């Protein structure tokens, strides 16, 4: 902490009283909200893995007990709220209130998990006082040539996270969405972006099915395009001026990396001219425009959703992203979506990201709890 005091650019504050950020899927994507369920069982195992921690429990029954999986929050959020893998021990009896899984498997969402022995809730809310997190302030750090540093100043660390938008909405449009990008009112769908009729139909379908078909939820496909900057767990920029490239090292997805080339190459492939292989992160080339780092990306495939809320895109997608670090603690992200296959005109969405000083991105592997 000494460096923070010396620099005077960081103060301690509780960033969020109780950290809650969407880890992976909407509750309704997996669980049937019309099927509330209460179960009491004996804990057999804690599967402390991303994206969601599961408590395995044995529920008494005839002729044999059944084994159930209770899905609670992810390890990152639980840890931030003071919970650990050992907060609940095998052998404890718990009472779980939640919803049954849509697919009929023995899974229940753990909206409320209470230890019957103590009457205390576990893996819900906070356990003690959440730790204080430093908040960064001060002027934009710069390279010797004067352009803003996208990453940490020399000798420091930190990452960008906590986006102020969790899903794409055209600038100037006022619609209500939850943290997963689900509209409060499906009738607002056409306002979100200038979609072509087929795209609007697909967007409505995805919304009305609670984003169940999200390839990131189903298959851990990467959150490519602007979606990588909508993720709660953030990313790091690593700039390598000597090799004329910038890495985006993500916490979400599967800790993927994206490379933005600043060496003037053409957008025909990341390696020596392959241009027939559309990518999840596209072919990205960057340049400096005043204080903004401008990234032009195309060559996307259609095997992923480029937005948490399920806005469609096609292989014709081109994004122009402008990253402007307005001060030490703030990055403004502006993305222009140009996809003549899905939208009637180019459109733009803007949000801010917050610098989390002194920390690495949390460890998140979507694949972690898969077989």
């Amino acid at each position, binding site marked *: 902490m000494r460096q923070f005091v010396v620099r005077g650019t960081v103060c301690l504050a509780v960033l969020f009283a109780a950290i809650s950020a969407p880890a992976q899927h909407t509750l309704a994507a997996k669980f049937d909200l019309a099927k509330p369920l209460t179960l009491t069982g004996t804990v057999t195992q804690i599967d402390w893995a991303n994206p969601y921690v599961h408590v395995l429990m044995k529920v008494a029954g005839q002729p044999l007990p059944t084994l159930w999986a209770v899905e609670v929050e992810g390890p990152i959020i639980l840890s931030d709220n003071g919970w650990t893998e050992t907060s609940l021990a095998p052998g404890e009896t718990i009472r779980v209130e939640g919803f049954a899984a849509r697919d009929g498997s023995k899974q229940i969402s753990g909206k409320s998990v209470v230890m019957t022995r103590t009457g205390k809730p576990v893996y819900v809310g906070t356990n003690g006082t959440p730790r204080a997190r430093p908040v960064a302030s001060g002027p934009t750090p710069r390279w010797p040539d004067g352009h803003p540093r996208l990453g940490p100043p020399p000798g420091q660390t930190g990452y960008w996270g906590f986006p102020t938008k969790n899903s794409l909405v055209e600038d100037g449009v006022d619609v209500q969405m939850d943290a997963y990008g689900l509209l409060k009112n499906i009738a607002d769908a056409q306002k979100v972006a200038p979609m072509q009729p087929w795209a609007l139909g697909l967007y409505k379908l995805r919304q009305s099915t609670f984003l169940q078909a999200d390839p990131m939820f189903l298959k*851990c496909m990467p959150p490519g395009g602007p979606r990588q900057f909508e993720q709660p767990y953030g990313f790091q920029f690593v700039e*390598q001026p000597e090799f004329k490239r910038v890495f985006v090292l993500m916490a979400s997805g599967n*800790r993927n990396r994206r*490379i933005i080339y600043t060496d003037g190459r053409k957008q025909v492939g990341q390696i*020596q001219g392959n241009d027939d292989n559309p990518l999840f992160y596209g072919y990205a080339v960057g340049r400096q425009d005043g204080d903004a780092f401008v990234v032009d990306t195309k060559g996307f495939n259609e095997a992923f959703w480029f937005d948490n809320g399920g806005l469609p895109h096609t292989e014709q997608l081109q994004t122009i992203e402008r990253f402007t670090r307005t001060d030490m603690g703030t990055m403004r992200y502006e993305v222009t979506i140009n996809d003549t296959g899905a939208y009637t005109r180019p459109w733009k969405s803007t949000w801010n990201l917050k610098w989390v000083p002194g920390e690495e991105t949390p460890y998140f592997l979507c694949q972690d709890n898969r*077989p």
Partner: protein
Amino acid sequence: MSFRINGRDDSAMRMTRLFAKTAILGLAIVLTGNIGVTAQAPAPAQGRGGGRGAAAAPPSAPTPRRADGKPILGSVPGQPVGGWGAGVTTLPRGGGLDEVPFQPWARAVYDIRQIDQFEPHTRCKASGVSRQFSTPYGTEFVEVPDLQRMYIMDNGGPNSYRIIYLDGRSFPPSIAPTNYGYSIGHWEGDTLVVETRGLNEKFWMDTRGTPHTAQLKFTERFTRSDMNTLKYQATIDDPGTYTKPWTTTVFELRWRPGDELFEYICQQSNYGPELMVGSQEDVDNTRFFVP
């Protein structure tokens, strides 16, 4: 067996393309009767991602160094970037299995894994230490001196990365276990010694399934003996698995000049998880639920 093909270190798409190219090539040979074409057979292998290492390495230059004299382990400023090819495939090689001080249970696990190769890597889990140097597409060492750290970028697996701190820090009192653990490096002469703690049990240390537990203290020695050669040696100190610490033979990774990182998304056509949850009768059903 399609599981192994798809799930192994290849994207099925890339494999399909490679097969297609090979088939077309084969057809061309049949049609033209021009056996000379076969001399061009490595062409698919030199394509992006398809089995690297076909290009002949140039004569080696001395170990590249920074202004302070320390070896550069990654790309050299002023030259095109490059990466390290696959080298390590199995840790006990050299000394032989009998010299590995397995505890009895560990030897049994090792033997079972020779038959039942459900390696986590084949299901798109992050490679983990030492295993990352066995993927066919290699790795790149990205050194960032002003942040006093080095990243090791994987091409295979889930397109991820590992951090090695070079700022003289010590290990934190508690480390949440991960596939790459918490790595701290220091220089001993021309050798970068990297110590890693906080490893989980969700990966194999090598392709053969040499086992470990979360008690593992993993020490690696990286020595770039010339421009094109990185010597690699690991010491495994895991009282949960072995009766005493042991050290592998020295493996060599070869420099691939101009070999850039590329996008490789293991999940794109990986069917391992579906097969593991019971669509094949003989498949181990280790987890009964999927998220």
